[in-house]
């Protein structure tokens, strides 16, 4: 589903590589944690998959497509197969929950009938049924993140990328979010989650890829956050 072949990324004007000769393969339906300190290359890794960045060397494949050879006008259709969730939720404050999720479908040209059918379904799935008319500022942090997950998942993407999705949430709320991501993963969606949250990684016992200074220093199935613990 996602494959990195000898991928290096050097930012313009910097000598040090943000990613150096990374080889990783993530299969369909896997749940993968991406761990490492700040500046270890996690964000670069995720942005390469979204093709917000291009690799300096090597090839990145997403859903069988070589992103280096992908025309820029085809990038939008590639991104429709990837859902993305961020630490800061990135909701539109002047739209309701329903409108926020519907927005993702409107802008890729889905019909109103489809939107009105699919959006309540996905709100139900993330546990927000009955809250479609609320605005983001009327919701708790955990609920806002559920809206963001609903928006990322509403188009049934093959891959869900989550960049520190529990970074702004308390531990109890985080558990709820992780259960939701786990449920989405069980529906055969590949989930790739970058995190600092040691407890979550240790509890979930999923595959762990650790980056340090741009290098993959560990790739362990059913792993924990660090060797020490």
């Amino acid at each position, binding site marked *: 589903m996602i494959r990195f072949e000898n991928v290096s990324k050097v930012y313009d004007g910097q000598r040090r590589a943000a990613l150096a000769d990374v080889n990783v393969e993530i299969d369909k339906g896997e749940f993968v944690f991406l761990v490492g300190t700040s500046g270890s290359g996690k964000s670069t890794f995720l942005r390469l998959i*979204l093709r917000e960045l291009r690799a300096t060397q090597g090839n990145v494949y997403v859903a069988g497509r070589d992103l280096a050879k992908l025309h820029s006008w085809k990038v939008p259709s590639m991104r429709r197969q990837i859902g993305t969730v961020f630490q800061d939720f990135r909701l539109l404050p002047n739209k309701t929950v329903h409108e926020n999720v519907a927005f993702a479908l409107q*802008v890729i*040209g889905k019909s109103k009938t489809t939107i009105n059918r699919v959006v309540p379904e996905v709100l139900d799935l993330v546990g927000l049924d009955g809250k479609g008319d609320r605005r983001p500022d009327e919701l708790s942090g955990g609920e806002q993140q559920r809206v963001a997950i609903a*928006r990322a998942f509403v188009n049934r993407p093959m891959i869900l990328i989550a960049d520190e999705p529990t970074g702004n949430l308390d531990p109890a709320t985080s558990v709820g979010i992780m259960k939701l991501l786990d449920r989405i993963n069980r529906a055969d969606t590949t989930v790739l989650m970058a995190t600092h949250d040691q407890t979550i990684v240790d509890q979930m016992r999923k595959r762990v890829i650790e980056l340090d200074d741009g290098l993959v220093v560990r790739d362990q199935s059913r792993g924990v956050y660090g060797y020490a613990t």
Partner: protein
Amino acid sequence: MRMRHIFAEAGAGLRRNLTMTLAVIVTMWVSLSLFGAGLLAQQEVGLAKGKWYDKIEITVFLCSKAVAGDNCTPGQDATEAQKVVIRQTLQSNPEVSAGGVYFEDKHEAFEEFQKAYKGNPLEGSLTEDQMQESFRVKLKDPQEYAGVVSSVAQLPGVQAVQDLKQILDPLFSWINLLQWGTIIASALLLLAAALQIGNTIRLTAFARRREIGIMRLVGASNFYITLPFLLESVISALIGAGLAAGTLAAGVYFVIIRKAQVSIQSLAWIGWHQTILAMAAVGIVGILLAVIPTLVTTRKYLRV
């Protein structure tokens, strides 16, 4: 569904930046009006030039008993043989228009003289025999007089060729200056309008950066993201261009058709034909002026 969303976004953008939208419309209005006025002025100069050019002639004065010249035998008129050579030289010159050589004899010259100096003490001072014969020459392009002048100036029997250079050169340079001045002034104003559109779009894009970020994230096409911006600027431009077209029409009607045409009938004046062409040009330039800066500005925000 798609289109409704796009129009809603464009409308929201126009309302959100109401003051900027108004500023763009007013700038467009003024600069496009001036641009159109420049076009019309150019047309008018062209028409006036054409009409005026038709009246321009070169006069080749021939030797007579009364005047002295380098190519004249003192005290004698130009001979018939000399006149034939001069006429042939003029007629064979490619810059002289066909049938454009007219011979004015002493009798005609005397009549012209009497007409011009009627009631003047000079009227009775000259006799018909003292008049000067001349060739009146019409040119295809009055700017190309120099070759014609030099081809006959040294022929025997030619007393003098009226030197148009001193009269025409400053005139032509003033006309050219006027035309270029109009073009440059309107070009500068149009540049200002284009920059203002670009800035307005930049503001709108900044105000909507969250939406744009999410649209890119969920895979909205570039076309879909750009279209509201494009519509927004094209709508402002069309309103500005419409006002400019109205201003031009009003200007032509009240200043030229009602006033100038009536009081100065000796000149050719532009009419509705030229006005409609200028209005069309204003419309096209207005749309380009909206589309190009918008595409340039949004490209920056849409780079994937």
